């Protein structure tokens, strides 16, 4: 729970600005935003989902990056809060899963089985176009209202800005260029997770933690580290060693899982 909201907001803005100035890492930026939204809404999991050029929903980042969660975000291929938000262009707020069985017959039982009670989706907009949505799943029936709605929308807007790298995206082509780049970065990270998981015999979540930890400590883009793993210029042993180093350093907070 956030104790001082003003301090939290200031900290979030500073971190965002910092991320935009530094060697820009679009996936890390979106991961960070997902984590911030998660902090805002108690007992939640957050996914940032983009619509690719062919109109498919693609998961770009999620707050805990647990494989099970990514899959739950991914199943909304033709129904679910994210799909409704994208198609309708409006926020889906406080949808109680006890009452959405008819509205989302596939999504609802899977989300309930995963322990969720309430879901929300906030559009990521570029002018009048919806380019994706911030998806929030809550484990408690807590509702989002008032200032929190604006805060979540502000963070979703920040995701759009970050995705476009603050460029004045006047043309549809600008968005397509950035979107394709971001999607490919994400796919490369999934491929690298698989390679690390297989080589070190760990699960995907651990593999992700190592990749991210290594990128952070070495000030590298997550996608570049992923490419390094895939092309074997970064060895799994190096990742493991870096991760062990991080664990020893008490001041560092490893990515939550």
């Amino acid at each position, binding site marked *: 729970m956030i104790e001082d909201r003003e301090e939290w907001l200031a900290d979030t803005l500073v971190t965002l600005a910092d991320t935009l100035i530094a060697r820009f890492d679009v996936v890390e930026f979106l991961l960070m935003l997902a984590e911030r939204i998660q902090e805002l809404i108690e007992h939640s999991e957050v996914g940032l989902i983009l619509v*690719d050029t*062919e109109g498919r929903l693609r998961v770009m980042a999620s707050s805990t990056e647990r494989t099970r969660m990514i899959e739950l975000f991914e199943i909304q291929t033709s129904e679910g809060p994210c799909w409704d938000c994208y198609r309708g262009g409006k926020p889906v707020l406080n949808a109680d899963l006890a009452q959405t069985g008819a509205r989302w017959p596939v999504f609802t039982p899977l989300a309930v089985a995963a322990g969720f009670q309430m879901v929300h989706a906030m559009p990521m907009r570029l002018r009048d176009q919806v380019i994706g949505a911030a998806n929030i799943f809550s484990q408690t029936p807590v509702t989002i209202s008032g200032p929190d709605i604006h805060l979540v929308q502000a963070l979703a807007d920040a995701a759009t800005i970050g995705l476009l790298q603050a460029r004045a995206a006047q043309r549809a082509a600008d968005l*397509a*260029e950035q979107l394709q780049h971001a999607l490919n970065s994400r*796919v490369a990270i999934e491929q690298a997770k698989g390679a690390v998981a297989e080589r070190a015999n760990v699960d*995907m979540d651990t593999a992700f933690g190592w990749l991210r930890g290594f990128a952070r400590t070495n000030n590298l883009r997550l996608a570049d580290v*992923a490419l390094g793993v895939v092309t074997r210029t970064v060895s799994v042993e190096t990742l493991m060693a870096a991760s062990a180093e991080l664990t020893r350093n008490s001041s560092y907070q490893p990515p939550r899982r």
Partner: protein
Amino acid sequence: MAAPTTLQASPPRAIPSLPPGTEPPTPSGAPSSVLQQSPSSLQQLCDACAEVSSLRASIVLGTESHPQAAMAASDGAAEIEEFQLTLGEGPGIDAQADACPVLVEDLSSTAGRWTQFVPAAQGLGVGAAFAFPLQVGAIRTGVLCLYASLPYPLSASRLRDLTALAGMVSDVVLAMQSAVAMEELAWSLSRATEHRSVVHQATGMVSVQLDSSMQDAFATLRSRAFTESVGVDEIAQRVVERMLRFDL
């Protein structure tokens, strides 16, 4: 410079001239997978792109170490491509290097980008250029370039079509390089489950199991899906759950 018409239906060939200091992409130095496809299929694919888009098209294939190992060009695109590769600058070069599409709707307003390529291309009657990397995450196989004779504003639907075309070309090239039967490719594409993260995770795992490239690992998953008549995601799920291995 060869007349464009003489290039029609010719096999992909090594790039004739490269910037000084560049390693010539000789067939012996090129990765074998790039050269596995039958010589005319790349040309056919390229011609199909030109026909479908009503634009001039070129496809340059390569890998990280050999970015320009083979190429094909439709009528009127070969000269443009030769300029781009010889000069070492242009939308296709940038698209490949940055792994992101480069979409130039009006070549006359590129603000000093590609100072040599732009006048050369304009001299060949090019008004707009669109370059799409042929890429699935870390799998980078080359670039598709499309050229229009006049400035060419991209509507949202046109952009969607061209991006979809590039996606299909990428898939076909992957299948060609791994010697996958076209019916296998058609099968897996029709299932439309390949963008799920589990598929990419499994690709990474299988590449380690087989000590192979990501391309070949991806092809292996597709091939198994075809053999078992299930979606690629189902095979991938089994791999990720460690119920299925490919090195046994």
